[in-house]
């Protein structure tokens, strides 16, 4: 039972690891672009409100 639990948790860890590492650079670049876009649009919107 204990061994099964251990196997399950290691499979879970492997899945998380592969989910993060799979297309890692694409995910990182997308995140950076998403933050920059939000940052820029929010700035533009609040600038419009201030005017």
């Amino acid at each position, binding site marked *: 039972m204990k061994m099964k639990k251990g196997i399950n948790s290691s499979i879970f860890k492997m899945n998380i690891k592969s989910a993060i590492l799979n*297309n890692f650079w*694409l995910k990182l670049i997308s995140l950076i672009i*998403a933050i920059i876009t939000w940052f820029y649009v*929010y700035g*533009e919107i609040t600038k419009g409100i201030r005017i």
Partner: protein
Amino acid sequence: MFLNIQEFIRLLDWKAIIEILILWFVIYRIFLFLKGTKAVYLLRGIIILVISFFLFQKLGFYVLSWLLTKFFAFFLILIVIIFQPELREGLIRLGKRHFFPITLKKEDVEKSIKEIVTAVVSMSKKRIGALIAIQREIGLKNVAETGVYLNAEISSEILENIFYPSAPLHDGGVVVDGKTVVSAACLFPLSENPNLDKTLGMRHRAAVGLSEHSDACVVVVSEETGTISLAVGGQLTRGLSGEDLVTILKGLLRREG
């Protein structure tokens, strides 16, 4: 134009985080969709132009910055023209995706995999070329329409019979949906991926092409070498054994069970 970092961190409430996460997901899906297509090179050019624009603004190169601002005015129209095939394909995919997927019984999926793999291994030994598309969430009706409708229950004998070299339906691909062989002698779209191995024949290019246009798993048997390959999401895995194919197909079709 931009906020400073401290202000940005102050603004990061739960709504902002959700907005950024949604933006991240959309941008990532777009990148994933464009990966491996010719549009990647155009996208690189656009990214260089955007970076140049911000650099010109920061450095105070007003003339160049003005020119790029004017260029961006036509940018939206340009994007629609340049990315027309990708946009069309993306919208088709979005429309075709089942939000509540039709679930297949686990036994049906396993039977289907068993029959396909048995036929594929047998044809590989006899050096008989084969092209089998297994439908997943995105429907392949438009592809099935280009062939001859069979709507027969899947069996390794039927598949081998279809691809037998002198059989009338051996040219083209077969579309399989669940435990049904929907159609044979179908025309699959050819891949235009410039990074594909130049030695690949039309059958392999058709397999990759269909996997680029849909989420189907496409199994190919090479007529020349008897090699078994699998195309999924525009990626071709070559030199598979029967056991490999069973494991991969079970993994790919598992969520439908």
